[in-house]
């Protein structure tokens, strides 16, 4: 993940720009741009540890020192705003020497645990060492030893020896989580990171400290020793944990997800995501429906589709009014569009309901109360027909529903299954990802891919249509919802000839105003992190 330009560094009107000479070449930057960002934007490659584009600049690591003409001493570029006619040198012998010496300081007592350090392969210290130093240690004495494996919070383990005292983690707690859990203690060689008196690192954004830590001092208990970073393949996607829709990368290897990390999007989540969202990957492969089920038996797709179509057709032939569909706020816009097209346009279904996870806690940092990633999309695609689960319960009790087609098993039964007398239905077809009581009650179950196995888009609470990408192969025989629905449609006499998610997306975009202007994005080839540079 490359450091993105700070928000506001986009080209601005000429009056607000300054001209700075970096290594002999004049460049124009907006006023107020930080000198480090400016240099790196034009390819000067100034190294740094403590600076983070999403945090304040304390200038403690002294790694980004550059020469500015007229200044008696080298200046920390992360702490200096650009000024007109500034002349900066980032590659003089003196600057390189200082850079090397600063690295040597940082490495003086560093334990060099790389073989067992989770950060190895994506460690900023490793990268800078190879880029700028590459020398053997000149340390004669015994290294200062500090505590290793310190449990400082629910999700996090600290290795004080590896810490290079950059204070990024402290700033994340202070500035992002607004929970000052971490502090520095002692001085000089013995300075250590530790928890603030009486606190532990337990805020809902604590794992961001692991991401920002340029070294392996903070490690996630969940990811610890699970997989070497260089083996992981990053797939850009969107967190399915709540309506905020934080942009993430899914880090997977050999068809297993190992972690989710935030991806920069200044308009949504900036550099961060919540801890809860990070663990949404855990359920991806849990209690999955891996094969179509018909009448309680695992069957072939063809058989299940035939049974589902026959069941629906029997009711449809009597009257489309007896058929209802349930849209899920967990499904992608593409799946929802395919269902809407089948149910509303082809079959003439009138009754539509929306289901999803229950509301939960929220804060005003990132987390939304709505725990579904695509409520906005489901509401927009369902349109005026959509009714609530309470209405579904009422219709079921009244017996006005004879057949029900459900896309997504999540939350349909609500808190009390007794309110949903499903046994009154002739036909219950569920497109489901995970097993639950609804799936057990269904006549036909069609297995769906999980979000991490699907290509598609989610609409977050701000109305932004964001792309998710498949990071894993589908579990078992599962298919994406739009594909399963296309097969079903063909058996119901409707023509829905979708062969790719992109086709569905394009059709949906042309149809639904809320998707107008959305972009499917380019195909992204899987890249192993070992080829993607340091993430620190």
């Amino acid at each position, binding site marked *: 993940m490359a450091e993105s330009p700070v928000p506001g560094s986009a080209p601005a009107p000429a009056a607000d720009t300054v001209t700075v000479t970096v290594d002999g070449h004049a460049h124009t930057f907006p006023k107020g741009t930080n000198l480090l960002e400016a240099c790196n934007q034009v390819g000067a490659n100034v190294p740094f540890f403590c600076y983070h584009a999403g945090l304040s600049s304390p200038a403690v690591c002294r790694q980004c020192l550059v020469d500015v003409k007229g200044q008696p001493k080298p200046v920390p570029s992360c702490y200096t705003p650009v000024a007109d006619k500034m002349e900066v040198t980032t590659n003089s012998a003196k600057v390189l020497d200082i850079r090397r010496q600063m690295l040597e300081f940082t490495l003086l007592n560093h334990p*060099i*645990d*790389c*073989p*067992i350090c989770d950060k*190895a392969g994506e460690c900023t210290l490793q990268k800078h060492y190879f880029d700028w130093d590459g*020398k*053997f*240690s000149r*340390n*004669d*004495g*015994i*290294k200062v030893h500090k505590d*290793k*494996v310190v449990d400082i919070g629910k999700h996090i383990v600290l290795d004080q020896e590896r810490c290079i005292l950059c204070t990024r983690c402290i700033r994340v707690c202070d500035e992002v989580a607004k929970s000052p859990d971490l502090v520095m203690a002692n001085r000089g060689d013995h300075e250590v990171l530790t928890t603030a008196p009486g606190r532990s690192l337990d805020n809902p954004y604590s794992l961001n400290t692991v991401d920002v830590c340029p070294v392996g001092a903070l490690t996630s208990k969940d990811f*610890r*020793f699970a997989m*070497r970073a*260089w*083996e992981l393949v990053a797939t850009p996607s969107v967190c399915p944990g709540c309506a905020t829709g934080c942009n993430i990368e899914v880090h997977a290897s050999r068809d297993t997800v190992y972690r989710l990390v935030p991806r920069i999007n200044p308009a949504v989540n900036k550099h961060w995501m919540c801890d809860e969202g990070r663990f949404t990957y855990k359920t991806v492969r849990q209690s999955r429906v891996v094969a179509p089920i018909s009448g309680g038996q695992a069957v072939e797709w063809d058989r299940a589709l035939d049974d589902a179509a026959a069941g629906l057709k029997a009711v449809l032939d009597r009257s489309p009014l007896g058929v209802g569909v349930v849209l899920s706020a967990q499904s992608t816009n593409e799946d929802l569009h395919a269902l809407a097209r089948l149910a509303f346009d082809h079959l003439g279904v009138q009754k539509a309901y929306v289901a999803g996870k229950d509301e939960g806690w929220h804060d005003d940092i990132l987390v939304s109360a709505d725990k579904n990633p695509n409520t906005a999309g489901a509401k927009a695609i369902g349109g005026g027909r959509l009714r609530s689960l309470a209405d579904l319960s009422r219709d079921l009790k009244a017996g006005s529903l004879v057949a029900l087609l459900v896309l997504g098993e999540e939350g349909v039964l609500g808190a009390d299954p007794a309110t949903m007398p499903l046994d009154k239905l002739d036909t219950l077809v569920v497109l489901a990802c995970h097993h639950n009581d609804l799936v057990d009650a269904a006549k036909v179950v069609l297995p769906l891919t999980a979000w991490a196995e699907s290509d598609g888009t989610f609409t977050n609470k701000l109305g932004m249509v964001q792309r998710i990408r498949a990071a894993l192969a589908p579990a078992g025989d599962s298919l994406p919802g739009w594909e399963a629905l296309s097969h079903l449609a063909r058996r119901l006499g409707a023509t829905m000839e979708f062969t790719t998610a992109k086709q569905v997306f394009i059709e949906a975009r042309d149809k639904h105003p809320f998707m107008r202007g959305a972009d499917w994005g380019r195909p992204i080839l899987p890249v192993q992190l070992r080829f993607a540079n340091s993430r620190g």
Partner: protein
Amino acid sequence: MAVGVKVVARPGSLKQQMYLPAIAEGMGVTFRHFIKNFVGNVTGNRDKTDIVTIEYPEQKKKYPERFRGLHRLMLRDDGQVRCVACMMCPTVCPAHCITIVPEETADGRIEKRPKLFEIDELRCVVCGLCAEACPCDAIRMDTGEHAKPTYRRADAVLDKEELMSRGIKSVAVQGGVGAFWREKPEVANTGQVQSANGSRSGADTVPAQIVPEGPPAGPVVAAK
């Protein structure tokens, strides 16, 4: 895009280009040998000196010092496995035949070690990259043994205990060149990557059974 084709003129006369005379000549050579040995075999006085066959297992060829044999896992001074589950070897292994599941230890000294360490000797292509990649001198291929034939595939997957059973204590400093390298004045910091006191093939690390005895005199060392 035109593919560049370079036509190489074949040298030689028509006779050479026809191959047939050369083929006949070659077959003449093999036929002569056949007749000579056939007659020798039948009459029972075949010239034994030009037989190149090594009659394994009665005779064995002497392996070179750097022969890559069955893997083994080296031990720490206290007999624990030296491997720190750094995953370098499975990363570099071109055959994907090393499976390691790391674990944390309660032992304060060792943070990470392999809970499971398996090498599938059937998949191994004996490239030696694992031993090359190991930063801890934990995995070696210097046993001088072949992977044993087995009746079941599963038996060819060697587990940690099996691999450790061949291991010996390594004299390399755990962790490589550490802070104390100047305590060994004879080792100069040349700036080259080498371990302080026990490079990979240093005499003191080579186990007794394959101590090199100089180059073998002939290709065959007859067994007693």
